[in-house]
């Protein structure tokens, strides 16, 4: 089933005179992990922000379950945000330095007012446990946490709205390799248990190859190759994909 469909999406930054995303179209199927690989400046983070409508596109449309996100109202969009979530790369920048872990999660419920006040704390504890932390983390500030722990809180926040689709924007790139493996395990496990759909962005072919079902290769704002991971890794059709694979260290 097609969960999300991107059609001819474009975004240019006039001040820098670059077209960050240049006429990109692709579907995302329910329950898959779709990889997006590319080097710095290829437009992958801009694409992520466009998908979530954190920035507005110049051209093109995004359909979520058949609904055109360009045409829905402001309040419907706020509601839809529950379904579409994001996990960022830098766990140091993605948490408000002044908010405790528990508050980060409780805020989600404050915004959506969908559970009674007394329950918020319990839900926060439950989510912290889901991501491998516990009640003892409720009152911790980001500065007191390691990179991996912060990233887990970022994941808990994304899960708080019970989303269907999560954009993972380089979620393990700034982590040490042993921590990276823990976080990948967590993401794989959550995806299976909650039947989530991921768009998984990374510059690391190893990470993409180990967890994705399908992969898209992006260069200069365009998708130059896409397909099942097995096909792209074993029989790359595009010149750029081949050079990426040749450079990768395994």
């Amino acid at each position: 089933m097609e969960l999300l469909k991107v059609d001819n999406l474009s975004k240019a930054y006039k001040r820098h005179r670059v077209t960050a995303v240049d006429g990109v179209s692709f579907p995302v199927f329910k329950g898959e992990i779709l990889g997006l690989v590319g080097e710095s400046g290829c437009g992958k983070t801009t694409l992520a922000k466009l998908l979530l409508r954190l920035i507005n596109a110049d051209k093109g449309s995004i359909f979520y379950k058949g609904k055109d996100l360009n045409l829905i109202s402001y309040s419907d969009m706020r509601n839809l945000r529950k379904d579409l979530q994001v996990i960022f790369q830098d766990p140091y920048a993605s948490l408000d330095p002044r908010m405790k872990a528990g508050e980060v999660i409780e805020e989600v419920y404050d915004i959506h007012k969908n559970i009674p006040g007394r329950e918020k704390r319990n839900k926060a504890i439950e989510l912290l446990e889901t991501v491998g932390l516990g009640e003892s983390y409720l009152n911790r500030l980001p500065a007191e946490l390691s990179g991996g722990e912060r990233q887990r809180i970022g994941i808990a926040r994304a899960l708080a709205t019970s989303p269907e689709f999560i954009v993972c924007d380089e979620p393990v790139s700034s982590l040490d390799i042993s921590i990276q493996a823990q976080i990948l395990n967590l993401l794989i496990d959550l995806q299976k248990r909650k039947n989530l759909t991921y768009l998984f962005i990374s510059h690391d072919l190893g990470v993409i190859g180990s967890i994705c079902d399908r992969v898209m290769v992006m260069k200069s704002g365009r998708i130059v190759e896409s397909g099942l991971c097995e096909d792209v890794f074993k029989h790359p059709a595009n010149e750029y994909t081949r050079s990426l694979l040749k450079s990768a260290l395994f």
Partner: protein
Amino acid sequence: MLLQIKNLKVNYRSGSRAMEVVRGVDLGIDKGECRGLIGESGCGKTTVGLSITKLMPERKGSITSGEILFEGNDILKMDEEGLRDIRGRKISYVFQEPFSSLNPVFTIYEQIKESLGEKNNADGQIAEILESIGLEKIIGRKNIYPHELSGGMQQRAVIGMAIASKPDLVVLDEPTTALDVTVQRQILDLIVELKNKMNLSILFISHDLRVVFDIADKISIMYAGKIVESGPKEEIVSNPGHPYTIGLIDSVPSFEHRKKLFNAIGGRAPLFSKLPEGCKFSPRCRFKIDKCAEKEPELENVSTGHVSRCIRIKDLRADGIIKGR
């Protein structure tokens, strides 16, 4: 042996407390050899690199004991003049961020010329260096500034400055971490090429074991301020001798390891202010027994030239619980 670090200990001050972040490191590098030093953030690997020419900021860190023998002379006993003679001439550095290693207001030509220590006409030498680092494009173009180059070309220029004075040892601290994969490949190839051509010795520091496995001849793995395993690359790759190394190798994501959970190391690295008793890795180790927490193990031979700081490794191997791969 060109460089030999013996029992190096370094203290770092944070606020009023002093913490030992390098807790007795031994490391040797032969002429023409590339030694890889693998460790995760905060394990003290960068401090080891900086200590070699006493480069760390004085108000923050101080070397409390040990010897650093370079061509037989103890660098730690040298005065400032002796150090200046070595820094940049015999031992040079390349760091992670090329742009912050280059001075933005000087041209690439001027910066390489300065590293050469030449006052007069050095154009011939500079052209030679530019050619050897793959920057033929800017030979003769004396008005090129760092910001006009891409990240990869900047890092080439930094490497050019590091090799300009024909040093014996180059310390490369995460030189490819900030670069894209294709550029990383090119820089690694360049380093190998220069190493062979100039018979350079290299200390290659990185958190990324894939990079170190690619480039190093010998590898040391550092955890919580100490070397926990050390040996020839082939041995470490195919026959790792410490549970931490095994955990790291199991954590490497790859296409071959598809759709399986990683056999990841649990927990997180300890803080230097709260180091555990005994083996520092034991709280995260899946092979831990009670004895591990009693006393910090010494480095012991597992095979020729291959040492490990683990009391269980021989038994685990004998029982077939840990197999070569």
